[in-house]
């Protein structure tokens, strides 16, 4: 990992990895969505509404994966002072929050025809909403720390690690507590989902994950470019002051 500690080296890799992730991700996710929306069968009880699963589940996974990214980056920032860790955490926050919001909206749209309600305060839905608020809080804190000391503070990293407690709670909410939300269909090596639904879903998850990775790399490049531009301006201002 410390091979990437040099931002110049990271940028060299990100320059080709970012468009690769984006391109392949858009192709795979697009194909998987077309497969799921037009080719995959209707479900026995839910009928056509089941098709929203191809957006809902990848969004839920990436909403949680985004925070796991923040937590891992926070850990590396605190322990090893990795120079790119704080930047990676900041790059994960917005796409993670967007996918969490997509998960909540598609879930609500799905809940109305399937359950008969837009929203209930059961364990799964509530903990996912808490995740969205954690993202908002984290982004505000990270922006404040950036504005006050140039991102040197470890407050966002500590928040990132504490907030990670919510991830297993989201995952196990349907097992620990009776909930209206279904228990997981896909568990270790087993699927209660017929292959006709499972395969397009797995490809949609892969495609959206690649898009997520592409967005994170693009945002990291942008943050690094911002920092370089700022450092250059500061040097110029100093040099001008010396004259």
């Amino acid at each position: 990992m410390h091979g990437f500690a040099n931002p110049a080296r990271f940028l060299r890799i990100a320059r080709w990895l970012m468009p690769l992730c984006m391109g392949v991700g858009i192709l795979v996710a697009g194909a998987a969505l077309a497969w799921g929306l037009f080719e995959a069968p209707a479900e026995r009880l839910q009928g056509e509404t089941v098709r929203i699963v191809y957006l809902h589940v990848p969004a839920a996974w990436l909403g949680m994966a985004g925070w796991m990214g923040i937590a891992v980056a926070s850990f590396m920032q605190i322990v090893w002072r990795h120079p790119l860790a704080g930047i990676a955490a900041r790059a994960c926050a917005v796409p993670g929050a967007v996918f969490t919001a997509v998960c909540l909206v598609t879930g609500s749209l799905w809940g109305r025809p399937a359950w008969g309600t837009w929203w209930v305060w059961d364990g799964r839905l509530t903990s996912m909403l808490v995740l969205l608020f954690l993202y908002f809080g984290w982004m505000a804190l990270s922006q404040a720390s950036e504005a006050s000391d140039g991102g040197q503070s470890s407050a966002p990293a500590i928040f990132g690690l504490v907030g990670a407690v919510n991830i297993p709670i989201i995952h196990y909410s349907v097992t620990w507590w009776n909930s209206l939300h279904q228990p997981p269909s896909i568990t270790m090596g087993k699927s209660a989902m017929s292959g006709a639904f499972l395969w397009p879903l797995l490809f949609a998850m892969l495609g959206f994950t690649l898009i997520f990775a592409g967005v994170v790399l693009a945002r990291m490049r942008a943050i690094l470019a911002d920092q370089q531009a700022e450092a250059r301006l500061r040097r110029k201002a100093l040099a001008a002051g010396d004259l």
Partner: protein
Amino acid sequence: MAIKAKHQRLVLLVIALVVLIGAGLLAAWALRNQASYFYVPAEITANPPESDRAVRLGGMVEKGSIKTEPDGVTIAFVVEDGKARVPVVFKGIVPSLFVEGSGVVAEGKMGADGTFVADNLLAKHDENYVPREMQNMTEAQAKQVVAETK
């Protein structure tokens, strides 16, 4: 010999994380009974709630139990969880996923006669996803097809 600063940070952070996750798990454990969205029939028959308290009852709709009353809008059915069964009456439009042998959450009050009077029904979908083409198969055939996909 001085301990390297980064090793010290690693150890401290790992200890902090273990404590944090332990606290989170304990809190979730304490919430175990409070955070459930509904009571199952076994719980509601063992500890019947007061008749004026709004509660939720969740379980499976017993096969062959859905009956429409003569007025055409009131239905009666039985919610069971394998241990206990609770009769339910409901007046209104049911969600489309409300079928026998499937999950349901009824919101309402427990009547004095042991019948649950629901004023809202929510259908609960389980984790099984089966294509519509399989719905006309016998249960054994469908189970086999589902088993093959595992």
